[in-house]
């Protein structure tokens, strides 16, 4: 992975989240590096990272633990000695989720809850107590899992659903701005260190001009720009004319492509 560029504002956001011990909620346009932040923080501080990619069917409990009752029933049906020993202890069928694992570690860790807005509307509310107290109870084993070291929790959202107020109240909120030109240069250089600076300037100029078109349904983002530059480098395109070569890398819908042509 190319180097992740941490803006000062984002660094400050992480710092505030650490001071207040609250989860950091990140929003921003797609392609602004919301998800990558957790990787970066974990890597630079040498902390273990637990990822929880939320899906539309995800339940809050899955991040804590999962009782594999089917496996237990299966074990109970076969009179093998090993299985019979296993089946007696419910504990053997408790699988911890990302939050659960992080709580049970003796050291600090980073937890990424990715795209929390994908799940059901009630999902964030079901996590309130767990995020507040950093502990939860497993009724099956009558065990209380509580964090010895409060992990740094990073939550990302794409704004598909509004998050409940009670949940927001417990978070630190940061909105990642779309990278400005200078920051974007740094990002490009970190991916393609040997890029010709003239080409980069031209590509950036075109890119930001396209982003200014109001009527685009989906403005191209960082990842599209990087893909595009890769194609440009590969084909040796110099961007000498006003035409945008390989526009398909930048526009993801037919409608936008037509808007651009006009």
């Amino acid at each position: 992975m190319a180097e992740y560029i941490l803006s000062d504002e984002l660094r400050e956001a992480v710092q505030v989240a650490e001071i207040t011990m609250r989860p950091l909620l990140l929003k921003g346009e797609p392609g602004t590096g919301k998800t990558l932040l957790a990787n970066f923080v974990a890597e630079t501080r040498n902390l273990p990272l637990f990822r929880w990619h939320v899906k539309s069917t995800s339940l809050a409990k899955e991040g804590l633990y999962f009782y594999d009752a089917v496996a237990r029933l299966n074990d109970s049906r076969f009179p093998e000695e090993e299985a019979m020993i296993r089946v007696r202890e419910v504990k053997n069928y408790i699988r911890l989720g990302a939050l659960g694992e992080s709580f049970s570690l003796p050291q600090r860790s980073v937890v990424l809850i990715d795209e929390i807005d994908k799940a059901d509307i009630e999902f964030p509310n079901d996590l309130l107590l767990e995020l507040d107290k950093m502990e939860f109870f497993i009724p099956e084993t009558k065990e209380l899992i509580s964090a010895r070291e409060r992990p740094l929790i990073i939550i990302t959202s794409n704004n598909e659903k509004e998050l409940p107020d009670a949940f927001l109240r417990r978070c630190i909120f940061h909105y990642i701005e779309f990278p400005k030109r200078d920051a974007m240069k740094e990002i490009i250089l970190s991916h393609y260190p040997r890029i010709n600076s003239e080409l980069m300037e031209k590509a950036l100029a075109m890119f930001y001009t396209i982003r200014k078109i109001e009527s685009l349904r989906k403005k191209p983002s960082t990842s599209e720009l990087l893909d595009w530059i890769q194609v440009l480098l590969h084909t040796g395109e110099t961007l000498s004319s006003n035409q945008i070569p390989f526009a398909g890398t930048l526009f993801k819908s037919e409608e936008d492509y037509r808007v651009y042509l006009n």
Partner: protein
Amino acid sequence: MFLDFFYNLRGESIPCSTGELIAFLQTIRSLTDPKGYISMETLYRVGRLNFAKDIKYFDAYDLGFSKTFAGFQENKIQFRDVLFDWLDKNIDKLISEDQKDKAPNLSMEDVFQELEKRLREQKERHDGGNKWVGTSGTSPFGNSGFNPNGLKIGGEEGAGNRTGVSLWTERNYKAYREDEVIDTRSIQIALKELRFLKKEGRTSLNINKTIDKTCENAGEIEIIEEKNRKNALRLVLILDIGGSMTPHSDRVSKLFSASKSLYHFKEVHNFFFHNIFHDYLFETHEFEGRISLKHFEDRFRKNTKLVFVGDAYMAPYELFSAPYNPYSYHRETEEEKLRKKKSGIESLKELTEKFPDSVWLNPEPKRFWGAPTIEAIQEVVPMFPLTIEGLRKAIRSLLGK
């Protein structure tokens, strides 16, 4: 002072509570240097991290912040106007003097230099506002008939750092306020609230849960029945297009495209009409694919939700008397013409009686709803303005909340 800040933010209707205040104070305490100082920018950002939990509150936060910490810009808009006035006057003076003495070609450069000098003075006076003045400085030149680009100072996207006072006086987040904007995404979010009504389904056997429960009971079968969680919602958008709707076409098409990309409903359909419909609706915006109201009523179930979109503004005879609709008239046979006796408002009444869950979204601001046709339609269908707020209210009304 921080308490004032807190209450000012609440005054700007940012939902924040004691918990956030404590977290904020905690952060401030650990971020201040040993001498007890903290920079304005850090304070601004730390406060925003703690208090403003969505980008839609950022503008309100900027207002609350400057109210508390920058007395002299209590009302930024005024402040800016004052500055504009000042620049206007002084630049005008400069130009006229210069133009008297020198050739017009040369004066441009001089004016530029003079402006720069002025702006530097301005910065000293207002301490830190240099960028702020820089960007607004272009405006008086536009007024005075000069090329604004020629005198633009560092206004390009991404050039330089925004610092100091500029950050919260620019009101960068104004566009994100919910009461002012409507874009495809926010429409989608609003329309998704329709998903709330998902308890309509029948009870059915939940196989997964039954298995789980049975396992937990160590093999004792326990059957779990649940209501179907599927969204059985059927939504029909009926759009007025052409004529007086043209100025609103942007917003309407946003609503339209938002509805197109909703996958969560059982059915979403679109129909079109011009001003008001009588016996027919059209399937395309080019008024093709005619469907009679009778057919429409048969085709959709009674619980289908109808959303009309139109300004409800037309010549009264179009609404109150039997039709002569220029858009469909020439397509009709003699027989059809004879049969048609209903006026537009009667057709609307008939349709909304068949489909009681109907709303009308009007792109005109509410204060213009005085026209007789608007009032008449409002009596038949609940009408809401086509804003995010209005859309929410309309949806709540559709759901009977």
